[in-house]
Every structure is written in structure tokens, then in C-alpha cells.
């Protein structure tokens, strides 16, 4: 039907191979069956883990078949490409004949074809054929997309139809699937998908890509001003919130709080709240207690900055924060490590565990130093993506729904009403057919007959 007229042998056979619905069925089932593997085998894991799970031989076999990233493997993409070719060629092959039915000026109706149908309803009208004709003409013109009246023997026939365009529904669905595939391709070629961890107060202008692990520079910078996490009483997370500032050449141009489900979009790049973590704290509130007078002093300390001790007793430098400190072989958890210089003495090392405030008593000094509190510091984990394919995919989403609805629930209905004069009145026979939902047609035909019988003349 739709083959190129000058197609020679091999071309023709390639065409008919791709135009076959058998191929569609095989491809859909193959895609379904192979997709299962990727849900059973964890994707994109580390080789060490795979070897541990599957053993060296199976690992190498699976790796050879790209089963660890199978949805991006050459053979899976080939299947999708074949499906796309199948859809396009199937549609083109059949569209030309459907096109002729849909875009015809004067549709063909044959009374003999309607007379073969069992879907019919009959009633006797009291009015004569001429009166019926003048009433049916406007009725069908109003309720059907197309109608015409033809004389027939002593009476007449009305031919009417509607929903001719719904025959295109399936091609709309096919077009949408192609749009989805194109949208996916555009996204993978022109987009990127990366992530970046930004500490509070830190500014970044490059991200790490997920797929290649490469670095993607951005045209602007992202600063994390603040990150907060809140919890429900049960301990489940309630909200992750990052306050971000976008900077162009160092100048802030946009400030926004992002939450999960509420990303930030700037110049086609989307920034999502993806994860978070804690950073080593930097500011600490230290507590100093004079052993003799019991006087308590509080002072803020920042890592790397020397502070004066109260009562001019000397100075203290906190050199680092350790999350897993130990003392004489015992793990003591989080602790500050520093150097204490008492007046008239040489500098000496000092250890201030966060969990044990009286630890420093052991040093035997005149002043006991403890960590009173500290500001927790977070980093926010941002997912940074750009996907110019999204509008195409979304267009595909909208039309696939519309197309499925048209294809499944609307049909091309053709009606023939035959009116034969009988005595003073006439016998009216309504016959109808539709290309889909044939089971619902008898009801439609009998409803139409009832309406015609009640038509005011």
C-alpha cells in the first residue's frame, strides 16, 4: 500500500519487515523480558561489589553483556531504535489508506453494505416520506459531522457519519511514543545530570557528572547560605531546606529556598534538594573554670585562631576537630585537638573531648577547659541537571493520553436510514456500523431510531 512505488526487492522486503505487527509484538515482549534483568541486577554498582555477589566469571559475563548498565547498553538502545523504526514504518504504511478515508470530500456509502448488517432498528412513521425528508435533513446535519440524502426507489436514504477523524487516534499515540524517544535522546545528548555538595557559606561553580564522573563547569555560581533539617517526633525527616543564592560574576542575582519537590530553575538548569550531611564544626563555645575560685568563663574558639585565656593565664590554639579521637588507645569520639601555652611555660598539647567535659581535669592545671557547645555545620547535596528534552517528553505525555482516549473510546460511526413509503406513512429502518466498539453499536442504533420516531414534524 504505502511502499515506495520504485522499491526494488530487498528494499521492499526490509519495508515489509518493519511494517509488520509481528515485529511489534516481538519487540514489545523482548523489551519487557530484558527489562526484568535490570531490576534484578543492581545497576551502576562498583565492580568489587559485583564480584562479591556474582563471582568473577559471572561478573565478566554480565559486564560483557552490559548488564550492569543495561538500559544504556548498545543492545537495549538498538531494541528501542528498532521499535521506533517499526512504529514509524507501520504508521506510514497504514496511514496512507486511512488518510484517504479521513480526508475525503464525499464519503462513499453503499446501501447494500448496510443492508448486510444485523445492527438495525425499524419503526413505522405516520408521516409521508417527503415530510420525513424535510425533518431528517436538518436533524442529521446538526448531529452528525457529515450527512446526505439520496433518493431511493420510492423513498430516500440518509447517509450520515461522525468521528471519522478518530481513525487517526492510533497514529497520535504512535507519534507520541516517537516524541518520548526523541525527547529522551535530546536529553541524553544535550543535557547533563550531576551533583554537588555545598557546605554552608560555601560557593561552587562546577559540579560532578553522574555518568562520566567528569566535571561540568556552570555559567554561574551557587552559594549555600543555610541548610536546615527538621524531624517529626517519630524521628522521620520532615523537611530538608537549603537557602541558595545564585551569583553571576560574583553578584547575587537570585535567592531561593529549595525543598524536595520544590527545585530552583535558573537559565535552564534545575537545582534539586537531594541529600545532606554534616561537616566538621568550626566554631565552639569553650568553658573555662578556675579550680580555686570556681569562676566560670566562656569564650568562643575558631579552629586555627589563637585565643587568650581568661585572667591572662596564657593562650590556646585549637588546631583541628577530630570526629574519632583516641586517648591512650581508647576511642573517645569527637574531640578538639589544640596547643595550650600557659604564661611562662612551653606550649603543650591539649585534648578536649566533646562528650567528656571533665576530661581536662586530668591535666591538673589551674583551669579546667571543656567544650560547652558548638554550631553544627551541614553541607547540602544538590542534584544539578539540564534536560532540554523535557518539553518534548511532556508534549509526548499530553498527546499519548489524548491519543489513547481517542483510540480506545471514540469510534467512526456510519449510519444509514432507509425510508420506504407505505400507505400514508413510511417504514423507517436505521442501520449502523462502527470501526470500534461494535458491541455498543446496537444500543446506539436503537436510541437513534427512538429519537427519530419522536422527532417533531
Amino acid at each position, binding site marked *: 500500500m504505502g511502499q515506495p512505488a520504485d522499491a526494488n526487492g530487498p528494499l521492499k522486503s526490509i519495508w515489509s519487515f518493519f511494517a509488520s505487527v509481528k515485529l511489534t509484538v516481538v519487540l514489545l*515482549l523482548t523489551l519487557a523480558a530484558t527489562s*526484568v534483568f535490570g531490576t534484578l541486577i543492581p545497576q551502576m554498582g562498583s565492580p568489587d561489589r559485583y564480584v562479591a555477589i556474582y563471582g568473577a566469571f559471572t561478573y565478566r559475563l554480565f559486564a560483557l553483556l552490559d548488564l550492569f548498565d543495561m538500559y544504556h547498553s548498545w543492545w537495549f538502545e538498538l531494541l528501542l531504535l528498532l521499535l521506533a523504526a517499526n512504529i514509524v514504518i507501520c504508521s506510514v504504511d497504514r496511514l496512507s489508506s486511512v488518510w484517504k478515508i479521513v480526508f475525503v470530500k464525499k464519503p462513499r456509502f453503499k446501501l447494500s453494505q448496510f443492508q448486510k448488517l444485523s445492527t438495525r432498528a425499524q419503526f413505522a412513521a405516520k408521516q409521508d416520506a417527503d415530510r420525513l425528508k424535510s425533518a431528517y435533513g436538518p436533524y442529521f446535519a446538526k448531529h452528525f459531522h457529515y450527512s446526505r440524502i439520496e433518493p431511493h426507489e420510492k423513498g430516500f436514504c440518509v447517509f450520515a457519519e461522525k468521528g471519522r477523524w478518530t481513525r487517526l487516534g492510533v497514529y497520535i499515540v504512535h507519534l507520541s511514543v516517537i516524541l518520548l524517544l526523541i525527547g529522551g535522546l535530546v536529553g541524553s545528548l544535550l543535557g547533563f*545530570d550531576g551533583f554537588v555538595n555545598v557546605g554552608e557559606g560555601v560557593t561552587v561553580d562546577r559540579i560532578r557528572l553522574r555518568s562520566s564522573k567528569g566535571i561540568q563547569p556552570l555559567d554561574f555560581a551557587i552559594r549555600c547560605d543555610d541548610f536546615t533539617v527538621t524531624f517529626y517526633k517519630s524521628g522521620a525527616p520532615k523537611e530538608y531546606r537549603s537557602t541558595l543564592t545564585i551569583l553571576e560574576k560574583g553578584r547575587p542575582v537570585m535567592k531561593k529556598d529549595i525543598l524536595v519537590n520544590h527545585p530552583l530553575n535558573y537559565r535552564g538548569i534545575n537545582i534539586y534538594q537531594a541529600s545532606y550531611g554534616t561537616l566538621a564544626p568550626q566554631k565552639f563555645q569553650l568553658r573555662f573554670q578556675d579550680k580555686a575560685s570556681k569562676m566560670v568563663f566562656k569564650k568562643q574558639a575558631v579552629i586555627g585562631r589563637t585565643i587568650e585565656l581568661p585572667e591572662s593565664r596564657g593562650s590556646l590554639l585549637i588546631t583541628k576537630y577530630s570526629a574519632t579521637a583516641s586517648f591512650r588507645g581508647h576511642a573517645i569520639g569527637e574531640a578538639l585537638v589544640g596547643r595550650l601555652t600557659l604564661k611562662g611555660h612551653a606550649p603543650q598539647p591539649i585534648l578536649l573531648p566533646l562528650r567528656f567535659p571533665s576530661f581536662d581535669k586530668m591535666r591538673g592545671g589551674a583551669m579546667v577547659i571543656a567544650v560547652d557547645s558548638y554550631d553544627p555545620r551541614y553541607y547540602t547535596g544538590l542534584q544539578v541537571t539540564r534536560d532540554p528534552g523535557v518539553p518534548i517528553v511532556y508534549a509526548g505525555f499530553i498527546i499519548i493520553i489524548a491519543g489513547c482516549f481517542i483510540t480506545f473510546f471514540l469510534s467512526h460511526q456510519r449510519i444509514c436510514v432507509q425510508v420506504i413509503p407505505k400507505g400514508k406513512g413510511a417504514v423507517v429502518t436505521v442501520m449502523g456500523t462502527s470501526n470500534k466498539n461494535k458491541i455498543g453499536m446496537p444500543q446506539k442504533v436503537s436510541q437513534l431510531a427512538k429519537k427519530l420516531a419522536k422527532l417533531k414534524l
Partner: protein
Amino acid sequence: MTSSSILSIVTFIYGLAAFLYLAAWVFKKPPAGQTAVWVSLAGLAGNLAGIALRWRESYQMGIGHAPLSNLYESLIFFACVLTLIYLVIDRRTGSHVIGVFTAPLAFLAMAYASLSPQVSNRIEPLIPALKSNWLIAHVITCFIGYSAFAVAFGLSIMYLIKNREAAAAQGGVLAARLPETAVLDELTHRMILFGFLFLTAGIITGAVWANSAWGKYWSWDPKETWSLITWFIYATLLHARLMRGWHGKRIAVLSLIGFTAVLFTYFGVNLLPGLHSYGAPG
């Protein structure tokens, strides 16, 4: 009365309906079938009331959200839609015997939700990922799809029973009381069309939601992939029927395979790691 206790009672109402349908079929007692329809209606009313009350309770707890956020809530919603679809078909066809194959599914879903110790019926606040307007659209479309496929599954079982009896030509009484194969075949097909439209809408709402939550509309997470596998199977069925003229037994078998994929998408995927952990038992 709390929503959980109402829904526990609904479980038994559905169980009673299933029993009455079965009794009406086996002992050929049409009044029992008619009673079963009324019992189903009562169950549906209780089911809806339970869902509405649960919604209200969540607001009273100060964590208000639609009751569509975990396995328990999805199961009661599934039973509700399943019963509703059955009742519509019952009204359209006037055949109560279809209830023999759908009421037990509603009962099982409710029983699993209410009785299994693995399924928590506590109203929990929403975690950040679920705080989205897409939650309602996604869950409702998916579960209308699942329910339609469940009804199609019941119809396919009926078809296979009727068809086997017809082939054996022994004219079994039970099979004789089932609707004609042509009617079952057409109803199955209609249900699958309906389910396919809603599955498609469910996948799409999920994709749009994923794009707003994670920045990717598709990430081949196991649940996503299994919903696509299900979509492929039903798409195969539709092409086989509409383009290759498959009917009857072969369509019924494909419908059974399709529903197996639905069940795996719904429950089986929880055994695999992925992003959809909120739908898992626990």
C-alpha cells in the same frame, strides 16, 4: 470509631459478599447474588467512609494528607476502586456472577491491609519526597489502572473456565452459569483498554513528579521499570487483538500474564532496592 476499625469491618463485609456470590453461583440461588450486590454496596460505602475518616483523622493529628501514602492506604483504596468498577459492570451487564471473581480480590486486599502484621495501619506524617500535589494524581491513576486490570484478570479466569468446559463439551453446570464467552472476551478487552489508559496516566504522573522531586523523569528504578514492563505486556495484548485479530483464550492468557506483572509491580518490587520504598510493608 476509628477509620481502622471501620475498615476492619469492611474486610468482613467484602468477605461476606464474596461468600454470597460464590454460594449464589454454586447453588444457583439468584437471591443470594442480589443480596451480595447489596452487601458489596454496603462494603463500598464503608470503604469510602473509612478512607474519608482516615483523611480527617490525619488532619486532627496535625499532619493532614490524603490517605494514599503507604501500603495500607493503597490497599484499601485498591479494594474500593475494584468494588466500584465491579458494581458498574454488574449494573451494565446485570450479571452478578462476575462478583465471584472480583469480590474475593477486594476481600484479600482488605484482609492483607487489616490483618497482616507486616502492614502498618498507623497514620504517619509525610516524608519530604511525598510532599507533592502529584501524590494524589499519581496514586489514584495507578490504582484505577491496577483495579481495572484486576477485574480483567477475574474476567479472564471466567473466560478460561467457560472455554474449557465448552471445549470438553460436558456442559458443566457451573460454567453454564457464567456469561457467554463472547461477552467475557469483550468485557476483558474493555477493562484492559480502561486500565491501559490509567496505567499510562499513572506512569506519566509519576514521571512528572519524579522530575520535580529528583530532576529526572525516568531513572529505571525497579518500580518504574516494572510499570513499564506491565505497559509493554498490555500494549502487546492490544496490538495482538486489534491488528492480528487475537481473541478469546490467547487474550485471556495474556491478561493473566499482565496481571502477574501488575502484582509484581505492586508487591514484588518491594523486595528489590529502589526509590519507591514508601509502598513497602513495615
